[in-house]
């Protein structure tokens, strides 16, 4: 593998920067179960990084470690060149990391708009007294953030469902709103856990387009988990392959596709 520590240029001419996040020798145990076993990889500024692997490989667990929701049993998380101390998930969010969930985790009783406004929680600065009076900063802030959210609503083409309680939306749209909620935070790093699971072909195409556009237009770094190999090959710059909690491959889609361990894992060669 060529040295890429100074960044690289992709086949389609996008500039990828230096290391944004680095996972160093992460191990995660749940009692006797080892969900992640001594895995290291990095995510670079501006790239689309995929994590793939069969069910139960530990992919979601890895995103949960990045989100601060799981605390690794061993290993270190480095972000923007320094070791991240142990943090609560909301503090990780404040650092500019947003995400979506494998099983949609929207706020069902709230409208699309309110869900997305909640995505901007970490940017809200007005005091409770100002909010109680709907006065000064509180009111100004509300319309400023509304404007930002409206841009994302336009971008995702969900104007028509702005005021609809998300619990009433069909599955595909809920997935889109969840992406919207994460985008509303204007994150530096966006984590997507199976953003296309359960979608039909057309919805998958839409979602792929949104993911590429987010990366392209906003320069957002993206780490995504996906099952559909075709989608992964199309979207991602580099791929980490996991199997039974271990990393079995890491590289460009082409490198990974030709890796014998990966082929075995995907063809279901028995593990003994």
């Amino acid at each position, binding site marked *: 593998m060529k040295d890429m520590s100074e960044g690289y240029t992709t086949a389609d001419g996008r500039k990828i920067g230096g290391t944004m996040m680095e996972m160093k020798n992460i191990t995660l145990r749940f009692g006797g179960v080892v969900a992640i076993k001594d895995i290291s990889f990095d995510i670079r500024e501006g790239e689309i990084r995929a994590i793939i692997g069969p069910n139960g490989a530990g992919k979601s667990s890895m995103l949960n470690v990045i989100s601060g929701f799981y605390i690794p049993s061993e290993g270190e998380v480095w972000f923007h060149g320094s070791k991240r101390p142990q943090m609560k998930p909301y503090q990780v969010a404040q650092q500019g990391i947003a995400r979506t969930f494998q099983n949609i985790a929207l706020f069902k*009783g709230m409208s699309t708009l309110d869900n997305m406004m909640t995505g901007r929680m970490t940017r809200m600065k007005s005091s409770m007294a100002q909010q109680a009076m709907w006065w000064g900063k509180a009111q100004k802030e509300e319309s400023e953030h509304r404007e930002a959210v409206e841009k994302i609503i336009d971008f995702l083409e969900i104007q028509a469902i702005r005021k609809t309680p998300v619990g009433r939306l069909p599955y595909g749209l809920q997935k889109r709103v969840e992406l919207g909620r994460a985008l509303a935070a204007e994150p530096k790093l966006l984590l997507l856990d199976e953003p296309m699971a359960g979608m039909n072909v057309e919805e998958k195409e839409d979602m792929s387009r949104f993911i590429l556009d987010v990366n392209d237009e906003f320069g957002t770094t993206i780490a995504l988990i996906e099952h559909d190999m075709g989608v992964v090959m199309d979207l991602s710059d580099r791929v980490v392959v996991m199997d039974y909690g271990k990393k079995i491959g890491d590289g460009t889609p082409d490198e990974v596709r030709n890796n014998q361990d990966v082929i075995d894992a995907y063809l279901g060669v028995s593990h003994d």
Partner: protein
Amino acid sequence: MFYREAGDFKTSYTDDSQTFPIKFDRWRYYAVLAVAFGVIPFIIDDYWANAVLVPFLIYAIAAIGLNILTGYCGQVSLGTGGFMAVGAYACYKLMTGFPEISIVFHVIGAGFITAGVGALFGLPSLRIKGFYLAVATLAAQFFLVWLFNKVPWFYNNSASGQISAPERTVFGIAVTGPNTEAWAKYLICLCFVVVLAWVARNLTRGTIGRSWMAIRDMDIAAEIIGVNPLKAKLTAFAVSSFFIGVAGALFFSVYLGAVEVGEVFGIQKSFLILFMVIIGGLGSIFGSFAGAAFMVLMPVLLKNVLVGQLGWPTDLAAHLDFMIVGALIVIFLIAEPHGLAQLWRLAKEKLRLWPFPH
């Protein structure tokens, strides 16, 4: 045909997020305010004030308070009676300790004290939820009533163990004590209701309200996208308790005048307010009013109609009241957790489209 959004265009986001986006609703709201301030004070008598209007207004404040905690933030509480007692006793201590300061500040101060106590008793919510939290707040309820009974300092060592409100005036007009006129009681409660409902509306439509609802709907996701659960839950407890404390202070000082804590602020009060919130509608300010009105009016209505007109025995009418409320609670919990407020919303939605249903 009048109830339309058409021709009522929003030109800014501020317009779009106002409380009554439809003009007709706004007019109706102003009309209600005009009647409440401009008509009722002139025609109110003791019976209407004491049996209906004053308790309705005070319960509405308490119901908004509980609705913030339970309806908006999803934290169950059975401690409402106890927190009302905190408001009442705080108000009493402030009234007797600082007689030179206006009663209005005593009531507000009582609200802040209750907010502090509420946040303290809200601490367990950081670890426990649902049934276990309900039991913890129940413990708070019994502890607080016991405390106010047990420690003479709270009732200034009075021989009866009761607290009673001395006369206090606002702009020279008595609002507490035996010489208070019906309209003065009504008007001071109305002022508190209007301001507090406005505050509740502001809080629930903004950042902090969204953080409460996010915790209610999915607490783990809320934390991962940046809601500090500690802050969200404790502010919900504090704000909720502020409202309930103000309600308790008014209930004692303006409405009853004298209070024996176990009798007035017992567990029944906690349930009464909870029923108001469930019947009126969880997560709705309007529903808090509807629920309070319903629970206050229902017994009065049954008594007047069944006992007064049809000559039923009083206890039978009271039993019927229990049965109706019980049945409604079950029906609403199963079929319509958003209560009367949702029925109202559905009716409006139908009306908006009428006479062209598609």
